[in-house]
């Protein structure tokens, strides 16, 4: 086995009592002594600090000097309007493949003279190779190795971070700013992966521990591990790449059409022109045969990833599979998401999941399971 990588906060995690586990090649805290459930609840009620430094940070600079050219180049790989992202704004995006599948999902920020991308840890090498192969004529591609990434999530996050920077309180959901925090230049976005208000902060490696410690010294802020990160995003209805979306799922199947702006759709000004456009635009007209939905188990037993779904209690042909599932501490009940045939995707449809050989009832449910608390 290759040796696990460490983020700049590794020693801090250990000193905080973090239980370290391998994740996407990194040695990361899955939980702290507080425990997954309390960490989850603390994030929903106060503010949680997450180390997400394992994620990839990449800068795209247009060779022409005009950031719009970098945006248009990136649009050849994603079905989003990147040229339409205003300066100091950020947008959710995904790389697609020729079959209309999803290679990775990412955030793209327009930071004036460049685009700033944050990609998933497990995909970052492939994403960077993909961009180098397709964008090198138009863009200089800089992989950021000297910055950590922290997420501060939850309703008290604004009050906490505002003590360290006067620029963050006025930000709205998906705004980005460059601001000095504890003497370090930080790139801050008002976004996250929990369904709560909060920030993601790119901070120089050598200032990351000081920033984390300053935040953790505040009464509202506790360190949160990957366990609660997963239950928070699941309740928030947010996809985990590799579980809920992958190269075998299209954006139409994954119910991510909201992320594809009009300008890239069939009659748009910059329609198509991304990998798999024929498949994806075709499915937008004709529909896909299956759809990602929320699934609310009727009983108390969690239905976890890869649990097989059936239309009724006795049929032998599976209709689909749960892709993420577990216990939702805020909902106080099990929650899940997965793929079902289009004709069974209406909210309220009763389906069955086979848990330990037994058919258990569940209902197709609206997502998110907990209301999103973004600062619009």
């Amino acid at each position, binding site marked *: 086995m290759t040796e696990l990588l460490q983020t700049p906060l590794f020693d801090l995690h250990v000193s905080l009592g973090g239980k370290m586990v391998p994740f996407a090649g990194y040695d990361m805290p*899955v939980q702290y002594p507080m*425990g*997954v459930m309390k960490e989850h609840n603390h994030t929903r009620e106060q503010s949680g600090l997450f180390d997400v430094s394992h994620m990839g940070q990449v800068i795209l600079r247009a060779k022409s000097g005009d950031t719009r050219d970098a945006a248009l180049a990136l649009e050849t790989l994603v079905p989003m309007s990147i040229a339409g992202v205003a300066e100091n704004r950020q947008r959710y995006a995904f790389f697609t493949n020729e079959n209309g599948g999803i290679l990775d999902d990412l955030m793209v920020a327009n930071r004036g003279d460049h685009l700033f991308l944050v990609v998933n840890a497990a995909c970052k090498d492939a994403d960077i190779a993909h961009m180098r192969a397709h964008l090198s004529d138009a863009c200089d591609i800089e992989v950021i190795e000297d910055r950590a990434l922290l997420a501060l999530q939850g309703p008290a996050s604004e009050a906490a971070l505002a003590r360290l920077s006067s620029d963050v309180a006025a930000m709205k959901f998906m705004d980005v700013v460059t601001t000095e925090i504890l003497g370090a230049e930080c790139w801050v976005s008002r976004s996250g992966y929990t369904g709560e208000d909060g920030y993601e902060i790119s901070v120089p490696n050598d200032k990351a521990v000081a920033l984390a410690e300053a935040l953790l010294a505040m009464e509202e802020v506790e360190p949160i591990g990957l366990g609660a990160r997963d239950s928070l995003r699941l309740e928030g209805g947010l996809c985990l790449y590799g579980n809920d979306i992958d190269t075998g799922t299209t954006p139409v199947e994954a119910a991510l059409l909201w992320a594809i702006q009009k300008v890239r759709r069939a009659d748009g000004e910059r329609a198509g022109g991304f990998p798999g456009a024929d498949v994806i635009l075709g499915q937008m007209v004709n529909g896909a045969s299956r759809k990602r939905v929320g699934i609310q188990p009727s009983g108390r037993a969690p239905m*976890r990833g890869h649990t097989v779904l059936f239309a009724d209690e006795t049929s032998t042909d599976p209709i689909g599979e749960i892709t993420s599932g577990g216990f939702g501490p805020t909902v106080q009940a*099990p929650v899940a998401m997965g793929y079902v045939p289009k004709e069974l995707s209406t909210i309220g449809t009763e389906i069955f999941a086979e848990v330990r050989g037994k058919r258990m009832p569940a209902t197709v449910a609206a997502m998110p399971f907990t209301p999103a608390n973004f600062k619009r």
Partner: protein
Amino acid sequence: MKFTEEHEWLRKDGDVVIVGITAHAAEALGEIVFVELPEADTEVAKDDDVVVIESVKAASDILAPLDGEIVEVNEALTENPGLINEDPQEGAWIFKMKLSDPSEMDALMDEDAYKAHIG
């Protein structure tokens, strides 16, 4: 009290033994959110899957520690699975069983041996 390598404890109570999971196991599992209990009056063989415990992290099977018959289950755990984290070695007993051969209990670990086992 006796212990198994599967992190169960067994305590004699008259002609039955009470079975639960150890504090060490409860701690390792994390917050428990679901318990599926067997029916009372079920014949079981050693290492049969008899109980499912789900934590925020994963599902785990609890095995029958020895041959015998399950005579009573702790229904309180169905409503309050978290009791296993709060009081694993007392209030959160899981089931009571009548052993086929009560002398088999003697071969299980005592507390010192279990402590050595979990290191």
